[in-house]
């Protein structure tokens, strides 16, 4: 019985195995990016970026129909354009990055919805907005895996300046010019992972598998490495459990994954070792030092 519910769907159906591989790839790459988004106080920037991808994906859809390669390429171009424009405007004018991004993403979202409405149906729009991880073919899975690999490699390169810039940006500016390029590379990684998430979860939920696991990790550790490991695990568990939930109950897969992550988040808020509500209400006896 337990085997049939938890493992059976993956041994029996290839599309479920593909979906599982995809969510694990999304977890491995997206969760560390989400961790930095949160620590750099850019969580909502990630959400805004998710909307910014829409016009590019819509142009891909307009040109090629529901072709995920075309939509991915369009999404990447639109996302990079908005990320880089917002980053350049923020760094060269002193305008806060979130304010700069808000302007670009709103324009981008309006353009995207306009483009989809010119050619598509409501069903197409729903697909773009909510994705469908269960419909992923081998080629799309390969794109997701390549994007995840690129993310981890680039993150390894920019990890050190990214950490220093997050905690002490002035110091980094005095010892290196790596801060600006690292920040732009990070924004590019945000876009890549949003496009990845977009295949599986759609534009509206793509950021969920990045930010929710990061929020979960914050309640369990003070250490960045441990937090990243917890976030990846939480994202992978949410992905797996969401797929099982979707398979067994016919809830759409994207929302199922995000709902599972939300449940883990709520449990963490209540019982987390670092700042959890229960621990604050019942802290135990104070320590000697």
């Amino acid at each position: 019985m337990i085997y049939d519910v938890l493992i059976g769907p993956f041994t029996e159906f290839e599309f479920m195995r593909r979906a599982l591989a995809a969510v694990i790839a999304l977890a491995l790459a997206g969760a560390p990016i989400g961790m930095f988004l949160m620590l750099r106080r850019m969580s909502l920037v990630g959400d805004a970026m998710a909307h910014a991808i829409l016009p590019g994906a819509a142009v891909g859809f307009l040109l090629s129909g529901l072709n995920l390669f075309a939509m991915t390429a369009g999404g990447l171009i639109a996302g990079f354009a908005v990320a880089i424009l917002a980053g350049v405007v923020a760094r060269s004018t002193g305008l806060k990055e979130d304010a700069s991004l808000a302007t670009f993403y709103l324009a981008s979202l309006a353009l995207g919805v306009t483009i989809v409405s010119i050619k598509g149906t409501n069903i197409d729009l729903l697909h773009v907005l909510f994705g469908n991880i269960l419909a992923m073919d081998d080629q799309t899975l390969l794109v997701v895996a390549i994007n995840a690999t690129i993310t981890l490699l680039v993150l390894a390169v920019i990890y050190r300046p990214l950490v220093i810039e997050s905690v002490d940006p002035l110091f980094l500016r005095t010892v290196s010019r790596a801060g600006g390029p690292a920040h732009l590379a990070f924004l590019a990684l945000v876009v890549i992972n949003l496009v990845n998430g977009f295949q599986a979860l759609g534009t509206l939920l793509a950021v969920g598998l990045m930010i929710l696991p990061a929020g979960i990790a914050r309640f369990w550790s003070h250490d960045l490495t441990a937090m990243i490991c917890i976030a990846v695990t939480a994202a992978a568990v949410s992905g797996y459990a969401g797929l099982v939930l979707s398979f067994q109950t016919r809830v759409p897969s994207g929302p199922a994954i995000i709902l599972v992550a939300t449940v883990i988040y709520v449990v963490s808020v209540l019982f987390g070792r670092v700042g959890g509500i229960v621990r604050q209400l019942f802290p135990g006896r104070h320590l000697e030092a």
Partner: protein
Amino acid sequence: MAALHFHNVTLGYDRHPAVHHLNGEIAQGALVAVIGPNGAGKSTLLRGIVGILKPLDGSIHLGGLDRRDIAYLPQSAEIDRSFPISVFDFVGTGLWRATSLFGGVGKAAREKILRAIASVGLNGFENRPIGTLSGGQMQRVLFARVLLQDARLIVLDEPFNAIDSKTTADLLALVQRWHGEGRTVLAALHDMEMVRNHFAETLVLARGPVAWGPTAEVLTPENLLVAMRMCEAFDDSAAACAADDISSRAA
């Protein structure tokens, strides 16, 4: 030989100057206090020296120094102490010149970091997240990082603000040690007694140089009064600056 040479330097933000028309030089190995009221341009000047801020006009020459020969201690408020990083890792960023993007932190480097932490009296704090430190402890951590940078020019922005006398004395001893080693040290300060007793040279700043020279000659009630008066407010409708010499404005 000069460690720093200022040629008609104006520094500021969005065309509004925070420091006008600064000329002069700082000798290698000098120990210089930069004083002035709030808003006088002290931090702006230091940011210009370390290259964070480009001059609106004029230039700052580093006498044969590379940017990486400068260690900068920012005000604590500039640091995000909620970021999950340990004292060890934070101090270790002072090794950037050696490690850059990919350099490993080997046994020798780890020992250097531990020695720097011990030098500022924070033995046993290595694994503590910086967010759990007191203000004085955080200031010690910042000094440990400067120690590790092993720089020839050290720029300290209000390094003794809001810390107790014991910590101040310990950290001041470090500053004296750097001076004894022939490093050039600039510090933005508010404590006149400290300046009088420990800093040989002083620049009195108030959006421009009011006086600059040996502390005993410069730190006079008259100069301090001028500094207080000159610290004019930011004016959105100000005309373009025509003055070549701020001293004429001070008169």
